[in-house]
């Protein structure tokens, strides 16, 4: 069954097996996004992902087909993350941690990217992840993060600048 068929089945009949297939389809991306947002806290990311899918199930009737289902899921995931971050007072790390560069293997570089990402503000991290790794447009990311497109663009550009500084120790020439 295609994503659209699964969705309409889950919405119209409350079919749990259709929703279960959607969970299997998207769990990796949602957990990966939340893992980055929680700066590598697997347990917290999984808790938030579970809450995200539970809320999605409860509100599935409210889903309007005016955008991708994955975007709707990420919107729930982002708001869950924000609520928890406010409650637990999760703050971004300061910029004192040294970032190695130049001689790493590919997996080291990825690890370094995660470490550098962890130093960005949550909104910068989210905007960069949505517009980079997850391939959303600025407008779609703005819908997910509930912010104006201009704000998303500035988060993306500021995040890139800061990452460049963390990796190479200099400001980027954009």
């Amino acid at each position, binding site marked *: 069954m295609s994503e659209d068929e699964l969705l309409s089945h889950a919405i119209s009949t409350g079919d749990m097996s259709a929703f279960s297939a959607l969970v299997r389809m998207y*769990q990796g991306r949602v957990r*990966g996004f939340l893992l980055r947002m929680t700066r590598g806290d697997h347990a917290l990311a999984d808790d938030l992902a*579970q809450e995200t899918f*539970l809320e999605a*199930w409860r509100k599935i009737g409210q889903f309007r087909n005016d955008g991708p289902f994955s975007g709707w899921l990420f919107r729930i995931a982002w708001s869950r993350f924000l609520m928890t971050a406010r409650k637990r007072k999760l703050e971004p790390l300061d910029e004192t941690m040294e970032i190695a560069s130049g001689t790493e293997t590919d997996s080291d570089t990825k690890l370094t990217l995660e470490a550098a990402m962890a130093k960005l503000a949550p909104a910068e991290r989210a905007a960069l992840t949505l517009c980079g790794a997850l391939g959303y447009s600025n407008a779609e990311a703005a819908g997910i993060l509930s912010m104006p497109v201009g704000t998303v663009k500035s988060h993306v550009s500021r995040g890139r600048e800061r990452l460049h500084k963390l990796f190479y120790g200099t400001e980027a020439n954009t």
Partner: protein
Amino acid sequence: MSSELELLLQCPLAEPADDGFSHRVITRIAQDRNRTAKVRALIELGLVATVLALAPFTSIGQMMEKLAADFIASPLVSSAAAATAVAFIALRVIGEFTDSQQT
């Protein structure tokens, strides 16, 4: 902007393996649904009990009493009521069985 950094940013996210995550989510949804159904049944039961408790004191209650007596006296109505009750219980059992198969 460094193209190396750009490439890294475009790299797909590391997605954790499922490892039973989806199953745990669906189990929680099923538990949530059962809990909601129980609460709803309790509320319905409470409402019915309240109506039954208050019915004898109202004129509607007296009217219902008379109608009920007439209905019970009719074998057709009694048979239909019994068939409805049996069908309702059977549908509920089948529904619960289907839900347990899905989870």
